[in-house]
């Protein structure tokens, strides 16, 4: 089995469909063509740049360059994860919470994969370390930001419920337990949906890529399962860490509800 190598012309042909959309947008006055043009241009430039960078780093096999790329990817993920929620914790709390949750869960999942299942040589080989970290990061930051949004928005909305319990002498952990469980469940919903739909509703991305690149479907599925297990495990961990850290920042030594530490973005 060999892969069909794409030529630049093939990509231009694929863009013809978008050109049709653009023409429709102009003809029907939908005002879509501008955004779609920008998004398309951005996608192509972004990916070509990444491709070029990855090719260089893979060839160089430099630990410093690998670490640099992983650091940039992680920082972007943390920034996005912290910025999405509608509420902000005081003293850059969103960054601290998302940073610890996304960083720790991703590092754990990536190290687990690189030292056990994949075992490339060296273990940080960029060809493995970068894509594995990337796919786990993408899922962990999405989960963390949804969970954080759930905890912060939920605490603000359920102030009367939480304080009713505090006023009766319940612990802060008991008073916020249902809120945290709910936020974690909501945060994990996309990952759980992705797992349930895998292969039935859509062929997941990794598998699609490997099959198109000429791999045997069973081999592609094994990779897909490995990555899915890693990203689900890391995401659940990220959700739990996020909820607990965020809750800790919403209380104090007297187990009060400290909504004064919360601002709306």
């Amino acid at each position: 089995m060999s892969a069909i190598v794409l030529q630049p012309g093939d990509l231009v042909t694929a863009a013809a469909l978008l050109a049709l959309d653009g023409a429709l947008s102009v003809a029907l006055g939908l005002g879509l063509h501008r955004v779609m043009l920008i998004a398309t241009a951005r996608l192509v430039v972004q990916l070509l740049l990444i491709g070029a960078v990855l090719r260089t780093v893979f060839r160089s096999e430099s630990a410093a360059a690998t670490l640099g790329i992983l650091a940039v990817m992680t920082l972007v993920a943390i920034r996005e994860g912290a910025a999405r929620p509608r509420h902000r914790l005081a003293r850059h709390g969103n960054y601290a919470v998302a940073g610890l949750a996304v960083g720790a869960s991703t590092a754990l999942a990536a190290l687990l994969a690189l030292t056990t299942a994949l075992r490339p040589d060296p273990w940080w080989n960029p060809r493995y370390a970068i894509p594995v970290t990337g796919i786990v990061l993408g899922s962990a930051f999405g989960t963390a930001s949804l969970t954080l949004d759930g905890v912060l928005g939920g605490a603000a909305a359920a102030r009367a419920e939480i304080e009713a319990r505090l006023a009766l002498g319940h612990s802060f952990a008991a008073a916020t337990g249902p809120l945290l469980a709910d936020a974690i469940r909501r945060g994990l919903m996309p990952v759980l949906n992705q797992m349930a739909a895998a292969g039935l509703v859509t062929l997941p991305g990794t598998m699609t890529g490997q099959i198109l690149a000429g791999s045997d479907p069973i081999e592609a599925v094994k990779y897909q399962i490995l990555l899915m297990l890693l990203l689900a495990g890391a995401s659940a961990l990220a959700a739990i860490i996020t909820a607990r850290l965020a809750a800790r920042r919403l209380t104090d030594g007297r187990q009060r509800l400290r909504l004064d530490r919360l601002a709306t973005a």
Partner: protein
Amino acid sequence: MTAGLRARGLRHAHIGPFDLDLPPGTCLAITGPSGSGKSLLLRMVADLDPHKGEAWLDGVGRSTLSGPDWRRRVVYAPAEPGWWLDRVGGHFPAPSPDAARLGLSPDIWDRAVAACSTGERARLALLRALGAGPAVLLLDEPTGALDHDTTLAVEALLAERMRAGLGLVLVTHDAAQAERMGTMRRRMAGGRLA
């Protein structure tokens, strides 16, 4: 050791400092215009907001207890009570035997909180707070939503508990209620007790 609730120098942004002395079985009734800081005072005593000052219950300093341990003994019942479950009964370890004398129907425990009237919820919140077994109860407008007869029934229940030693800090708009219930009466104006 001083029996009952004592507080010194309770202070928060624009209100206070307040000193309170509430022996067991007495009621401090506080009246005053809306926004004068009555609810904030109760929240400070319950330690629900950050503030300065110290409080003691039967000589035991609040700062030597955890927040929940203090709030189990000094229970705050806000004017707009919160409900964390759908069903009324879930908020009580067991149906309260005092529900009937407050005019609550015996089937109320199986009802949804959302299906109860404001007046029913006010009485349920009071029973819930009493059920926690507090030494001191901080009541914010407990009868604001009740008719005259039900108000008197609530007052009778509270007076009975006071005879058993319960201390009461009662915030009310009703001067006649302050007259009936208050062992001591103070007026809050501009964040100060007069």
